[in-house]
């Protein structure tokens, strides 16, 4: 009887569970819903648009906050279009006397540039307790008492929310927040140089709480009317337009700071840094960066439609199928913290994550190279997984410290030594061995996709490459040996010591996984007879060496803030020298000719004349060789066939709103891929029975023996 009961209970249990997908990490009620499942491996530090500056932070806030401009999703080269603005800004140049100048005014006459921005009326903020108002028009939650705060644990604990219209003042308020020292915005120091009155404002409000800056004026930013505002910047700085497409310049209602600055809320982790308030397509409904972050469709999102224009092949790829339809298409996005690559990859293959990158340990499983091009393996094709590749607007370069006595300096001897090393360090090999072919060797400062990048023969670095068979080919090592001989180090022998020249490579990597790469670097310089000593240290010591100019050779990278050559060439501008000025020029390269061209180029609009200047600058840098141009990483992203409207955009981050899911196909595929295998249970059961039988019989036989 008990056995019968157990059997019935077990049968009931089995029928109660859905055994078709026991490994499903999501609740059953989410099946069939338009929920996108993504993962993140590092919790974002900041979600305040005045502070956030990392890719993993932008993945969230770019969906929530809306600056006045954005990048076109489909068009290439990257193109700015209005987002909350009604049109592109009216840009006015002003001279010393305050008079307006024409669009073609001489740069020397331009003292200020005014950006006049009109925003769309009727845009509303997401529902948020900071905006909740009572019947008498007072804010409900702006004067919380201790008891009210004690009962809270998350923002969802507030029993009312409100909204209001987006106005020009909100954009101005955000710029004031950028300037407030307590906000600690990473771009505050830089913006002091551009926005008129930014520095003075910062000084004026430094003792005030964040919530008290609303009515303190900043000279350079003014609201012209409810939907129009003006930003005045010093001189001409065309790249400022790109900053206006970044979340730093997204609007912030003053109510947010008044609400979040109430004492006691920060102790509950209820801060603006963790609970954003925006006008974007999504709102953050759950924020547990230790486990899961959830974006939900903003019910107050204004009308925005899917683009109806793109590149010629976009129509064929189905990227224009949703043209004109209102955004967003996905109801909810669940980001789950997955630190390890193996579970993340497995979940993707099981269909529980909709998209994935490719970690090096699963690369061979996903990609194969046929005829030099990357293609999906049959196992991926079988699952109808899609691959998209794109070269990132980044550069990883090997820099020489130009202040160093051996590799630095501007003598012909030092230049030839650097050039010889540039030829010897075979970045094509590095990309092949250590990056699974994910990257292209750099030919200059600019990566593809940035204005001024030139393809083909004209775009190669003629000091390290030849143009052969319609592609760049690294010069023979004999050329490098000849160069090093001319540099005074015949066969790599230092004439002072009569031994192999010793050079030092400073790096932050010290793990055992990095050793093969260090050995590879050593071997590259051994081709020239040079001995490379690896000086691995922690990040802070490395930074300290770079700051003080004590490093000799190092590897560093730069990811573009915006698609303009200025954002790369400034890394070599003399006035940005790390040692002298604390800037981003870690090689401390200073060439007056280059600096002159840079100063001219940076303030120009894109034109054939600017293109020519860029080529001249490339030539100077290639000639002087303060960097080995290293590589531009290539992004490989995989996604399932049910994940639609995907087009890689390496600059824009607010792309979730364009994407769509075929949930029916996803449900079917998940069920087909995740049927559990129960047969090993029988095997384990049989083994257990066998051992038990053996044990029991042994005990019995022993007992019999002892009785006898």
């Amino acid at each position, binding site marked *: 009887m008990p056995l019968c009961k157990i059997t019935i209970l077990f049968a009931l249990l089995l029928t109660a569970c859905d055994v078709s997908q026991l490994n499903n*990490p999501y609740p059953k009620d989410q099946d069939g819903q338009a929920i996108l499942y993504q993962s993140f491996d590092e919790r974002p*530090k900041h979600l305040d648009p005045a502070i956030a500056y990392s890719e993993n932070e932008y993945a969230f806030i770019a969906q929530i906050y809306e600056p006045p401009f954005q990048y076109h999703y489909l068009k290439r080269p990257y193109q700015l279009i209005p987002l909350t603005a009604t049109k592109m800004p009216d840009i006015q140049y002003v001279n010393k006397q305050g008079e307006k100048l024409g669009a073609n005014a001489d740069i020397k006459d331009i003292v200020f540039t005014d950006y006049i921005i009109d925003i769309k009326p009727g845009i509303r903020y997401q529902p948020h307790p900071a905006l909740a108002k009572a019947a008498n028009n007072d804010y409900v939650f702006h004067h919380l008492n201790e008891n009210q705060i004690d009962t809270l644990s998350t923002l969802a604990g507030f029993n009312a929310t409100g909204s209001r219209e987006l106005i020009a003042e909100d954009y101005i308020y955000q710029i004031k927040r950028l300037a407030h020292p307590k906000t600690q915005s990473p771009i505050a120091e830089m913006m002091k140089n551009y926005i008129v009155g930014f520095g003075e404002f910062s000084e004026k409000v430094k003792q005030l709480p964040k919530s008290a800056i609303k009515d303190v004026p900043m000279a350079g930013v003014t609201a012209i009317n409810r939907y129009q505002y003006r930003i005045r910047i010093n001189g001409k700085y065309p790249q400022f337009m790109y900053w206006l497409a970044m979340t730093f310049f997204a609007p912030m209602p003053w109510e947010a700071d008044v609400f979040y600055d109430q004492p006691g809320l920060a102790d509950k982790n209820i801060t603006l840094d963790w609970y954003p308030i925006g006008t974007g397509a999504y709102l953050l409904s759950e924020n547990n960066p230790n*486990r899961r972050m959830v974006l939900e469709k903003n019910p107050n999102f204004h009308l925005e439609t899917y683009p109806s224009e793109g590149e010629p092949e976009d129509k064929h790829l189905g990227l224009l199928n949703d043209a004109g339809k209102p955004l967003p298409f996905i109801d909810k996005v669940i980001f789950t913290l997955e630190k390890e690559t193996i579970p993340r990859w*497995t979940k993707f293959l099981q269909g529980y994550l909709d998209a994935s990158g490719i970690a090096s340990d699963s690369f061979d499983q996903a990609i194969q190279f046929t005829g030099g091009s990357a293609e999906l393996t049959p196992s991926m094709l079988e699952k109808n997984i899609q691959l998209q590749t794109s070269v990132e607007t980044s550069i990883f370069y090997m820099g020489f410290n130009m202040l160093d006595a051996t590799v630095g300096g501007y003598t012909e001897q030092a230049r030839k030594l650097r050039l010889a090393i540039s030829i010897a360090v075979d970045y094509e090999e590095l990309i092949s061995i250590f990056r699974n072919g994910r990257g292209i060797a750099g030919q200059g400062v600019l990566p593809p996709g940035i204005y001024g990048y030139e393809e083909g023969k004209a775009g190669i670095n003629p000091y390290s490459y030849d143009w052969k068979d319609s592609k760049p080919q690294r010069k023979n090592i004999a050329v490098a040996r000849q160069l090093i001989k001319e540099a005074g180090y015949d066969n790599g022998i230092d004439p002072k010591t009569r031994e192999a020249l010793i050079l030092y490579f400073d790096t932050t990597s010290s793990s055992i996984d990095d050793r093969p790469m260090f050995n590879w670097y050593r071997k590259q310089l051994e081709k020239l007879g040079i001995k490379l000593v690896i000086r691995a240290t922690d990040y802070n010591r490395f930074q300290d060496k770079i700051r003080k100019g004590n490093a000799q050779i190092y590897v560093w990278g730069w990811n573009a803030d915006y698609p303009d050559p200025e954002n790369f060439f400034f890394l070599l501008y003399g006035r940005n020298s790390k040692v002298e000025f604390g800037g981003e020029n870690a090689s401390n390269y200073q060439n007056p000719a280059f600096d002159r061209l840079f100063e001219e180029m940076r303030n120009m609009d894109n034109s054939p004349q600017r293109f020519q200047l860029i080529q001249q600058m490339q030539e100077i840098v290639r000639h002087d060789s303060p960097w080995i141009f290293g590589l531009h990483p290539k992004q490989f992203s995989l996604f399932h066939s049910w994940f639609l409207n995907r087009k890689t955009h390496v600059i824009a981050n607010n792309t979730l709103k364009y994407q769509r899911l075929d949930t029916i196909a996803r449900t079917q595929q998940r069920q087909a891929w995740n049927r559990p295998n129960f047969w090993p249970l029988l095997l384990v059961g049989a083994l257990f029975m066998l051992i038990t039988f053996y044990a029991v019989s042994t005990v019995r036989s022993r007992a019999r023996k002892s009785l006898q």
Partner: protein
Amino acid sequence: MINYIIRRFLYAIPILIGVNILTFVLFFIINSPDDMARMQLGQKHVTQQAIDNWKQQHGYDVPLLWNEKAQAAEKLTNTIFYQKSVGLFLFRFGTSDSGRNIGADIKERALPSLAVALPTLIIGLIADICVALMVVLFRGSKLELGGMILCVILMSVSSLFYIIGGQFVIAKVLRWVPISGYDDGFAAVKFIILPVLIGVFSGLGSGVRWYRTLFLEEVEKDYVRTARAKGLTETQTLFRHVLPNAMIPILTGVVVVLPMLFMGSLIMESFFSIPGLGSYTIDAINSQDFAIVRAMVFLGSVLYVIGLLLTDISYTLVDPRVRLS
């Protein structure tokens, strides 16, 4: 006994101050407040002004241990050490360098750590004792020899192998449970089955060998021989006499680790995406978040002191011959 407990708690205060000083000195030998600021501010556009501003906002703009410029007691109190340490003794951990409240984070993360560690400990203990008793029961037989060889093999394998292997077989090939993740309430069960199973299995080798040693020591004693002479079977002797007497070292061994269960397991939590305290500490070390490191080391020390105290108390409970004074 109450006097003893109070005395032990008082002894703990200088120990905790010492641990705190040691953590502080070790951390700041490697990192300066400037380094911490750079780590938090990122790599782009970081100026000295921004660093000074960060230090001022986070209270790192005063001297480390002794403030020459301050007056009287402020020479000691107006320092990073004093200001960052005094709250710890009231369990006010303050705010992390990245801006989150540490106390709230610890509260949130302790439960997932416990959800994995406690079942692993209990099931592991039962499994270890059962298998160890079996092995003792079959001592001198091929089953014991086979069991011991298996234990040595199990002990020799890295825990990482169990995790990756377990995930591959159970979650990927057999598809019985989700490969990683966590959820609230009972929904967490399907996520913790695999880590618990792996935790139990990976500890089986060493656990069985350890308990086997305890049981073997016990079975040779006179009272066991008397029990056998009275006609009890080997099974009855083991379960009725050997097991209760061997429970004293087992219990004390378990009690000492109980408070530490809150601290979580680093590798397990990381591989199974369990939002516990183990990964919290390592993340803080990697990001040089001194506030979290200090809080976690302090908490670890407190829990360890409590663990030792509980062990002493448990002795008196399981062995009437022991008296605390």
